[in-house]
């Protein structure tokens, strides 16, 4: 087991190098630092000195990959690639274009993101599984057909409409919760209600439909027939046998997204004014702050790989038939 995890972690290294190279090519080769400087300084009538000054101030005035002027190891280290991209491996994110420490910002903004993402995941999971079990209990009746139609319709509504509708109805018409904003510590709860409700409702369509298919697949299996044949009630069959066995795919599906919860939700956070990582990313995109976007890409890749490894491990924990070698 330990050897397997170690090997998987080693496999992650080339992938992260690949991610890094790709972002490096996107950010520095396709568009040179000169282009970036011009864009930040305004598009027209920018003097050469201003461009050089901006580059020097932000550390973009070095050669891309190989510094011929330096000596020894500095030939490789005093380059943009080493300074801006390779340092990410040590989780040194550097500073953003407006001079703030990205690492500090990330550690601060992680918590509001989690405060939304974790309740949405848990409440959504509980609701979707119960609703799916309810549908499966009444399978092949009008309850089933009506629910499936409802789910497909809910699936076809853009997440933007859930947010706009939720804000409009709950905040503007009924004044039940503040439209947007955030507070420190425990006072934040009233700002979290609306985003969590909207997040859960927005996920019902896809989630419940997926769990329904999972349960229906299990219901048709032999062991369920055996359970019924020995006289168990439908309730017991569903909760003890079907749910138990369907939990394996559900659990592994959840584990894979767990690390990514840190990244927050781009749309939800920016709509509700939550100072999390999602809105951080969105702001970086709209301010064209490449340093932050680069850091978030790297962080996202690390968390994704972590998710994959956790999934494999969770398989062995819940399903004794799976052995990792």
């Amino acid at each position, binding site marked *: 087991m330990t050897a397997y995890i170690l090997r998987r972690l080693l496999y992650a290294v*080339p*992938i*992260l190098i*690949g*991610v890094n190279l*790709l*972002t490096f090519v*996107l*950010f520095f080769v*396709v*568009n040179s630092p000169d*282009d*970036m400087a*011009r*864009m930040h300084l305004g*598009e027209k009538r920018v003097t050469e000195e201003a461009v050089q000054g901006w580059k020097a101030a932000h550390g973009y005035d070095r050669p891309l990959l190989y510094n011929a002027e330096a000596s020894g190891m500095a030939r490789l280290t005093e380059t943009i690639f080493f300074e801006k991209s390779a340092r990410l491996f040590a989780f040194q994110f550097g500073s953003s274009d407006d001079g703030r420490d990205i690492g500090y910002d990330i550690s601060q903004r992680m918590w509001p993101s989690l405060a939304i993402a974790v309740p949405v995941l848990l409440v959504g999971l509980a609701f979707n599984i119960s609703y799916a079990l309810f549908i499966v209990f009444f399978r092949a009746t009008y309850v089933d057909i009506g629910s499936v139609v409802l789910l*497909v*319709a809910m*699936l*076809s*509504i*853009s*997440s*933007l*409409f859930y947010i*706009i509708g939720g*804000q*409009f109805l709950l905040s*503007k018409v009924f004044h039940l919760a503040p439209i947007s904003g955030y507070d420190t510590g425990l006072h934040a709860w009233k700002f979290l209600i609306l985003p969590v409700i909207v997040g859960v409702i927005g996920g019902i369509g896809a989630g419940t439909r997926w769990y329904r298919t999972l349960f229906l697949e299990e219901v048709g299996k032999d062991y369920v027939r055996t359970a019924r044949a020995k006289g168990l009630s439908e309730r017991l069959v569903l909760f003890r046998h079907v749910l138990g066995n369907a939990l394996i795919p559900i659990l592994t599906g959840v584990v894979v997204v767990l690390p*990514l919860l840190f*990244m927050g939700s*781009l*749309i939800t956070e*920016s709509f509700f004014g939550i100072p999390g990582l999602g809105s951080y*990313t*969105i702001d970086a*995109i*709209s301010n*064209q702050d*490449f340093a932050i*976007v680069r850091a*978030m*890409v790297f962080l*996202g*890749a690390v968390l*994704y*790989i972590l998710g994959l490894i956790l999934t494999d491990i969770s398989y062995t924990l819940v399903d004794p038939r799976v052995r990792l070698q």
Partner: protein
Amino acid sequence: MPLMPVVLWTDALVFLLIALGLLFGLYAARHEHLRAPWRRVVQSRVGVAMLVVLSAYGMVGLLDTVHVRLKLDTPADSSAAPQYAPEILSLLDLALSGLRERQEKTYSAPFATHLFVKEAIEQPDGSVIRDFPRLEHGGSHLADPATQRGADILFTAMLGMLKGLVFWVLTAFAILWLIARRRGELMEQTWTAIRAGRTPIPWLTALSMLGLLLILGFVAGELAARYHILGTDKVGEDVFFQTLKSIRTGLLIGTLTTLVMLPAAILLGIAAGYFRGWVDDVIQYLYTTLNAIPGVLLIAAAILMLQVYMSNHAEDFTSLVERADLRLLFLCLILGVTSWTGLCRLLRGEALKLREVDYVQAASALGVGHATIIGRHILPNVMHIVLITLVLDFSGLVLAEAVLSYVNIGVDPTMNSWGNMINSARLELARDPVVWWSLTAAFVFMFTLVLAANLFADVVRDAFDPRLRGI
């Protein structure tokens, strides 16, 4: 000729897509095993009804894809080469030129005759009052809107309904005649068969859906000639016109993205599964790396790069339309880059299974080359996966466009799209009284398209998935 056709990049790709679709259709029509699943699709009520809805959207999108430049008026006697207007218009723009040109000053509610905001109006006697001024176009034929408007709307709607009904009856008659001819029976017999549901294809559903759409279309068309049926936006543009124009954007994102990603996904997926070994390793590494980057961030990074490129090479783009078009194409490309990995992995798994199948082993033992085995034995056997993915991905991509445009990394802000409409509607909802019509229009049109696509995709999946056959 008074028009000069203009083919934008995305137009060319759409034509390519249609040509490919037709070729595949012809090929499938001559092979029974390919025809059978399609027959199952059109034999389902939901499938047929949704196909009608999707084709209606497709027609609008197609009309909006043929672009032209109008010829400018030149003196009749001059022998100089004809001059063309710099503005690029689509056939849809020309067909709806009334809607496009009837601009108001600013917001007005659906069916309104007065502007949504008060303005200083000079009275005939010289005094100035603040009131809602009459619209320049919406309901301007009415002498006294307060009393006449209701009756006029009702009358116009009835007229539209009547026209739609007549048109529908004629179309239905033509379709009926065609079916009767094919079945070699009298039209009455065909009609009874259709009504009793004894035809393999549920024509009654198809015709009802067609009738519903035709009547709705004619009513809307008739009313739109006199009113702004979905109101006007901030700069006074007709919202109904905007939503119709947005259809093309949505359809293009949903279809071109898959078209762009298909070659890479099919080629690499099959190669990885078929050759295994180091080829497999390299391809797996490639898609894991791409997958590891959060999709939104990759798209954002790429779009940011495009913006930098465009602002540094502004002289390469002659018109706004071309610029927006190129951005749309680029968005499709980058969405394709982020979304081919799923299909690639599925195909790899399937190819891994197929290469061990007896007939592939036999072909390989007889010395058939790799290219032939892949082309003849593997590819046809994974096509159902490609098709199912293509249809299933469509609705997700349409929804993604709205979200991306909201974050400003979607289509060009000057382009009509549902995402841009929702984006601007955010501020409108904060007004008091609320400006709700842009958002509602985008919602209704988008919801209909995505719902139809989702329902159709389910039918296609059920018909094509061999595991579900016979259940």
